[in-house]
């Protein structure tokens, strides 16, 4: 296993194979927890630790998991890690844990975690899987922090709850509401694909070329 491969596994998911902008996974939490950077940061740490550790543990026992029950075994491990994170948050950052409410628990259903376990950790060695999880977690975090930065700054005029713009700035409610994340993530995807043309998918079907329409006006006159 060369160093280059380790690096690739870690760095690729950041932009090139980003779980949110390329695979369009984990959108739910990207909408829900990005109106405030504090909360977003905690969520990113939570998800990154869950996805990297679940990859690690699943990879360790990958050769013993019967394929008939593999999904449920993966889920058990993921759920355990999520509960651990939730309990830790409740003990050491109660304020944020209240704000995140159900969304920490919903990491269990985050497609990124399950996807990496099934696609990577079931096949690869533990350390490599751990790096893959870490990379995907950080890739997810990059996008989330970007979205949260824009939403909080232009929505509430604050960053980490600290006023940046001052009183003259009226709060922008559209940015504070979850749907704005759709727009911002869409813009990110556009940016990334504009720079990295490999990501542009082929059209699912070809549109036929424009043709000149028959002159309708005349026909109508004849009727």
């Amino acid at each position, binding site marked *: 296993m060369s160093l280059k491969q380790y690096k690739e596994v870690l760095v690729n998911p950041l932009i090139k194979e980003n779980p949110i902008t390329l695979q369009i996974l984990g959108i739910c939490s990207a909408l829900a927890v990005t109106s405030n950077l504090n909360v977003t940061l905690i969520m990113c740490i939570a998800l990154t630790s869950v996805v990297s550790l679940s990859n690690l543990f699943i990879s360790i026992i990958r050769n013993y*998991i*019967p394929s008939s*029950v593999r999904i449920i075994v993966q889920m058990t491990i993921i759920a355990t890690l999520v509960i651990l994170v939730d309990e830790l948050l409740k003990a050491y950052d109660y304020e944020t844990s*209240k704000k995140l*409410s*159900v969304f920490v628990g919903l990491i269990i259903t985050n497609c990124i975690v399950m996807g990496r376990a099934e696609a990577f950790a079931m096949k690869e060695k533990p350390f490599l899987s751990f790096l893959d999880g870490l990379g995907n977690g950080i890739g997810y975090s990059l996008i989330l922090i970007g979205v949260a930065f824009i939403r909080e700054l232009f929505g509430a005029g604050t960053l980490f709850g600290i006023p940046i713009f001052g009183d003259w700035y009226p709060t922008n409610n559209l940015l504070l509401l979850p749907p704005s994340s759709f727009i911002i993530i869409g813009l990110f995807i556009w940016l990334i694909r504009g720079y990295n043309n490999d990501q542009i998918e082929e059209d699912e079907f070809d549109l036929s070329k424009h043709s000149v329409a028959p002159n309708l006006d005349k026909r109508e006159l004849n009727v």
Partner: protein
Amino acid sequence: MNETIMKTLGVTLGVCLLCSLFVSFTAVSLRDQQNTNKLNDKRIKILEAANIYDKSMSVEDQFKNLEIRFLDFDTGETYREYKDFDINKYDQLQSLRFPDQSKPVPADKDIAIIKNRENIGKIYFSIKDDEIDKLILPIRGYGLWGTLYGYIAIENDFNTVVGIEFYEHKETPGLGGEVDNPNWKNIWVGKEIYQSGDVKLQVIKGAVDQNMSDAKYMVDGLSGATLTSRGVSNMIEYWFSDSGYLKLLENFDYES
């Protein structure tokens, strides 16, 4: 061979056992810390309800400025000491477990759906210059998914609302969960509870027309959360009725 029944059972059982061990170990070892956080959060809510919370000071110090008293719901009398109860530790929700410390609420009166009401409550006074400034009363009632627990603070006219806070509820985030929305909580400030002895304050459906003469008795409903709004409304009606705090408010005369 991974696919035999024995192996499948073995692996699943092993994973489950290990995982449950981890979960229970963390849950037990972090319980104390979590309870401290919960208590602290509850105290902040009490202070916030009365609009006297100062972020720069420690919660414990601010809480010491409050006077805490026992309340006998049946007589409306308050006590600084009652039997061998410790006022700082007494939890009226715990006393619901004991039939000698609580009473079932008759079905026709149980509009807040609390089932049992404690005999002895715990209420808080904020004192200014040896006079009562504000009164902070615990309330609870059923919403859509579960019971909402909170505090309502009133002025020393025993009628005007200072603020309302919920410290525990299971309502849907974004809908009923909007009971935590500061904008909605602000609507309550200055509303009045009683009109000629009856509880008039209620959460209505839709927005309140500020020009109406009764506007001071009405709070905007939460859109998309009719049952939660109704629950909060019923809660107010119950706790300020005869079986709630009415006796206390009618007879109370503060002596420092």
